């Protein structure tokens, strides 16, 4: 079982000293290896902020411009580093503003600890100023939550919070701390949490099931892998690669699984799902064995369940038992950590190449290339496409950038065309589809991986949901590259209106401000591209810059994202136009 790694010279361990609850919180964070957190102060959390001031040489607090920004920044940090992201807020509205980020982290299994201040114990339930039942509110969107009302609980609960956030299938934890507990003095000592008796985070793989899985894999004629974020969370990228290479099985990914295997790997056949690649979707219904690794058969992946992979036997490698048979009935469930289960499977599977089967993916790719991809990334029409912008980012960054996306058309295009050479490079709001995610998440991603190029690709709609976080980028000179693909529409909703609502464009036309001027208002270098001839140079200039950089690209207003599985249709009914 994974345990909290404590810093060697941590003075907190076992030496008891009398300190306030607020100071104890800082020591807990330090003991957990936290050196960066995002947040927003306010009345009920002020004692902790006072301690943050005293400990600023050890612990950097970044003031986001909205608490939602703090959660997404913490998520971006967590997704790029694999560590726990930390966000802090005050009671009442500060706490409720965390809800979207918590829900996002919950559905995308992101390890995050949120700390909120709360009114003093004696005022609980009195409708005090800025009192809100954040425990009640956050229960459905947290992996665990707890309200601390006395200082003596702090050490144990904080240790448990960090343990739970990252153990097994990760998720967000919220700890609410009443103000009296922050002021109270007590004898503090810290022990990292090594386990919770009622919680079994990683099921032990069963050798018989592993053997049965190997047998199914070895006898399959048209086996097919779909992997998800479980591979990244389980740090199983090497095992996945070895498994794919040995068995020669074509492998596709869910949006959150992107970058676990190099985009250019010959056995990487592309993305599944609503706007995924043609072959991976259609051939889901033609394989004889589907091996699902660390993915949860989301409806955007499966389309109509009644027609999903009915012809195939299905093996599900999964850490969370609740995901087994939740959406898709499987023939064999291999429970456990993907690194471990893939590692156990590897020696039992036969070497193979599946050439003919693989050629079917190639054939389908050719069809998709001719009908969709070619026009997306090498367009001949006048207007700029989102796809060609992504392609230029690939070229300028040599496929090495972390791509952080928001939600909508630009997200689908970026996930389709961005190329990756390193894991944890695709950061997007997958499950919740949170517009406004990208800009703050990119801040967290950059701060978590300063050595890497981080490019936020955002639509004009989502950008304006958290645009105020430009203030953070400016204040701390965080060299994030921001690309707004501006089509003056809420593009994805507009696309649906065009296709399914007889072109009634209800509230999807945006009259936008001058985004360049706004960025310049924050003293961020900003450029706009409206013509193809300027695109390459601007993107190269952006990537070459070692400062924050904003690039607005005016793209075609009414482009659609294809292929597309219409909502509720079968994966095999994916449309190319």
């Amino acid at each position, binding site marked *: 079982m994974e345990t909290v790694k404590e810093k060697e010279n941590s003075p907190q361990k076992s030496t008891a000293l009398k300190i306030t609850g607020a100071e104890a919180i800082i020591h807990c964070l330090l003991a957990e290896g936290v050196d960066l957190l995002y947040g927003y102060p306010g009345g009920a959390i002020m004692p902790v902020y006072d301690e943050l001031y005293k400990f600023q040489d050890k612990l950097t607090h970044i003031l986001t411009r909205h608490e939602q920004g703090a959660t997404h920044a913490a998520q971006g940090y967590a997704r790029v580093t694999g560590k726990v992201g930390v966000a802090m807020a005050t009671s009442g509205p500060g706490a409720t503003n965390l809800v979207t980020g918590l829900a996002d982290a919950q559905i995308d299994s992101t390890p995050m600890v949120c700390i909120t201040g709360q009114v003093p114990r004696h005022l609980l339930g009195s409708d005090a100023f800025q009192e809100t039942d954040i425990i009640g509110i956050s229960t459905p969107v947290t992996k665990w939550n707890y309200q601390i009302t006395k200082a003596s609980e702090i050490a144990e609960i904080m240790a448990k919070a960090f343990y739970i956030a990252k153990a097994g299938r990760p998720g967000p934890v919220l700890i609410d701390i009443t103000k009296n507990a922050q002021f109270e003095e007590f004898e503090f000592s810290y022990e990292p949490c090594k386990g919770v008796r*009622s919680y079994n985070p990683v099921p032990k793989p069963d050798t018989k099931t592993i053997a049965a899985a190997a047998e199914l894999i070895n006898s399959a004629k048209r086996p097919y892998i779909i992997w998800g974020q479980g591979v990244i969370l389980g740090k199983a990228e090497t095992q996945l690669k070895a498994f794919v290479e040995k068995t020669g099985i074509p492998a596709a990914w869910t949006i959150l699984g992107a970058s676990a295997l190099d985009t250019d790997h010959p056995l990487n056949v592309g993305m599944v799902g609503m706007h995924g690649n043609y072959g991976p979707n259609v051939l889901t219904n033609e394989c004889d064995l589907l091996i699902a690794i660390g993915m949860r058969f989301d409806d955007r992946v499966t389309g109509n369940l009644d027609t999903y992979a009915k012809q195939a036997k299905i093996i599900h490698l999964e850490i969370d038992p609740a995901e087994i048979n939740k959406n898709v009935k499987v023939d064999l469930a291999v429970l456990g950590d993907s690194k471990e289960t893939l590692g156990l499977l590897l020696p039992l599977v036969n070497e193979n190449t599946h050439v003919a089967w693989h050629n079917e993916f190639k054939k389908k790719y050719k069809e998709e290339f001719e009908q969709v991809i070619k026009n997306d990334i090498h367009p001949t029409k006048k207007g700029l496409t989102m796809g060609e912008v992504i392609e230029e980012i690939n070229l300028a960054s040599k496929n090495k950038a972390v791509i952080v996306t928001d939600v909508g058309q630009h997200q689908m295009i970026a996930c389709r065309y961005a190329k990756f050479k390193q894991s944890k490079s695709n950061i997007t709001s997958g499950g919740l589809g949170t517009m406004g995610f990208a800009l703050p998440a990119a801040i967290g991603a950059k701060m978590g991986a300063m050595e890497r190029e981080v490019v936020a690709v955002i639509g004009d709609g989502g950008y304006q949901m958290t645009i105020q976080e430009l203030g953070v980028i400016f204040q701390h000179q965080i060299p994030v590259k921001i690309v707004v693909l501006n089509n003056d529409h809420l593009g994805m909703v507009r696309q649906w209106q065009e296709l399914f609502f007889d072109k009634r464009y209800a509230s999807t036309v945006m009259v936008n401000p001058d985004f360049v001027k706004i960025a310049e208002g924050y003293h961020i270098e900003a450029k706009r591209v409206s013509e193809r001839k300027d695109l390459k140079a601007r993107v190269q200039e952006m990537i070459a810059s070692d400062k924050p950089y904003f690039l607005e690209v005016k793209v075609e207003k009414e482009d659609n994202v294809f292929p597309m599985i219409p909502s509720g249709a079968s994966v095999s009914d994916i449309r190319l136009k």
Partner: protein
Amino acid sequence: MEKQWFTISVYSENNVGLLNRISGIFLKRHINIESLNVSKSEIDEVSKFTIVVYTTETWVHNIVGQIEKQIEVIRAFYHTDEETIYQESALFKIASNLLFDERQIQNIIKDHNSQIVTVAREFFVLAKTGRRNEINEMYEQLKPFGIMQFVRSGRISVSKEVMQITALLNEFQEQ
């Protein structure tokens, strides 16, 4: 798939927020909790939720998975009626004069093996433990005479199969 009655048994830590977490799992799926009982269990400091739902096996499987996933839940099971021994309890408050005026009431008490819990000047209280239909039957028989108050508890049940919670807890602790 056909709907049927299921009894969900949840062994958990005794935790303030857990009921909220568990009820949310039902709420999210529009599944009505037909009866709920929370009590101590055979293990020290371990609580037991007994929840009755009327739904399909697919859903109950799904729900039990989500319940078990909660950090403070040790284990959750579901059983059909045939797989459990189960009972409910009911109290009937009836005007005391009826005991003397309506002879039939005494027969009802005897026939249903029900106990008189207390007799006061104004009212007496009957207790009945049994299956839901037995309680309903007694209710219907008493109803014509006038019931001042009636209450029925949630289902409590034990499974026919062995539940190895203690072994599980030890196993968790060893890991």
